[in-house]
């Protein structure tokens, strides 16, 4: 299996890694059984993602897709961020091996989960805006994009 140079760069030097103490939207997807967990921290100001950080447990692709997803949504409006697709993450990384596509799905879903949390904190039902979060469930195994 070969990773692109871009993937290796984002794995070796992940952007926006860490926590945001003043985050107002936090989302987590994945589970330890499947071997990947992604948590996104968003600082949303005036409907824009002013800052974003992530923490990820997972393989090289999990770390690289998390890193790339944060780069792609930073500074964007929530509407733009919600349009982020896993395909865009894969493209920005100059491709992923087929068995790793599910990592990009997780990254996309982690961003959506954090935005959902933001709306929930505001007392707004996130479901009509964000839609359903597709997550792995331990009992069912990894359903996402595998």
């Amino acid at each position: 299996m070969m990773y692109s140079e871009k993937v290796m760069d984002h794995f070796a030097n992940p952007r926006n890694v860490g926590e945001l103490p003043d985050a107002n939207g936090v989302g987590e997807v994945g589970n330890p059984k499947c071997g990947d967990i992604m948590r996104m921290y968003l600082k949303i100001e005036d409907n824009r993602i002013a800052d974003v950080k992530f923490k990820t447990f997972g393989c090289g692709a999990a770390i690289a897709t998390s890193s790339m997803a944060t780069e792609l949504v930073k500074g964007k409006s929530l509407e733009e961020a919600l349009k982020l697709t896993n395909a865009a993450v894969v493209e920005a990384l100059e491709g992923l091996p087929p068995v790793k596509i599910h990592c990009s799905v997780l990254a996309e879903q982690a961003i959506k989960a954090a935005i959902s949390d933001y709306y929930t904190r505001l007392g707004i039902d996130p479901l009509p805006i964000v839609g359903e979060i597709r997550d792995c469930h331990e009992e069912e195994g990894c359903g996402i994009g595998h």
Partner: protein
Amino acid sequence: MKRFVYADNAATTKISDSVFQSMVPFLTEQYGNASSLYSLARESRRAVEAAREKVAKTLGAESREIYFTSCGTESDNWALKGTALAMGAKGKKHIVTTAFEHHAILHTCQALEKQGFEVTYLPVEPNGILSLDKLRAAIRPDTALVSVMYANNEIGTIQPIPEIGAICKEKGVLFHTDAVQAVGSLHINVKEQNIDMLSLSAHKLHGPKGVGALYLRKGIRIPNLIDGGAQEMGKRAGTENNAYIVGLGTAIEEATALIEEKTPKLIAMRDRLIENLLKIPHTRLNGDPVKRLPGNVNISFEGIEGESLLLMLDMQGICASSGSACTSGSLDPSHVLLAIGLPHEVAHGSLRLSLSDMNTEEDVDYILQVLPPIVERLRSMSPLWERIRQQG
């Protein structure tokens, strides 16, 4: 300072200089077909038979009980499928093996199940050793074969082979062992240990890839896996791979002659790695601390995932392997680590370092210098580690 450390010798090994030199004539001037009549060919025949003698001597077998194959996997396939066919015809359609065999055994067993054979996959104990009581209880009147690996490829645990051999002999059941990881590291005597069939491979002992052997005790008649010419006493067709067979002979002779000298050195390096890596919190050794191959280290670091660990080690020049799902090519982590009872998330964070006599104490120093900060770094970005720390 950065250095290159090859610590994946259970995957494959570097060909030694002497092995390579012994092969060269048979890749150049000495190209005769070992089955032909003229003098050029006679030299090839002589070399092939000398290699056979070396393999036989290492195992305490007779030369005519050694058959060269293309690899350990072929030897495993032949032993299992051949025995199943021969014994199945006599109404014995049950095979006993373990849950943590190499895929060459497990997948062959699964193929046999599809053909109507019944296979018992014995669980192993948490220390990675097969329980003799469980084995004894699993053998039935219709059991054709017991196949238990000599030493496990991932966690290095050495199985009680002489005792298993004795049980099989007592019960009148054939006993095969996949000894791919053990040959050249441990003293093996097929007669004293009651082994009926044994698979081995050259590339795990500083020999070339693409050549192996099956020891088949005389008197055991199993059908061929590969049919064709009369090579290998009519049991395994295909023109003899002279150079590689010679390489196997040189490698096995050398590796076995070095056992006394290299074992204490390897154990010292292994145990220094284990002792120091276990100082990292939330870390566990997989497999028995004593009954393990001299060069095998298998450790799980909780809160991190194996593939990212391997990638970071590779950036520092260290070659190792892991039992994580991401490196197994499937969704599940290593079946071996699950068989010894590891939860999935702990299996995902496993690291195997396998040393050979080409490694040095400086390699160990370097691994111990480079590895802990990598674990620290990956944990610092892991939400799972955060959870583990909060739970204490």
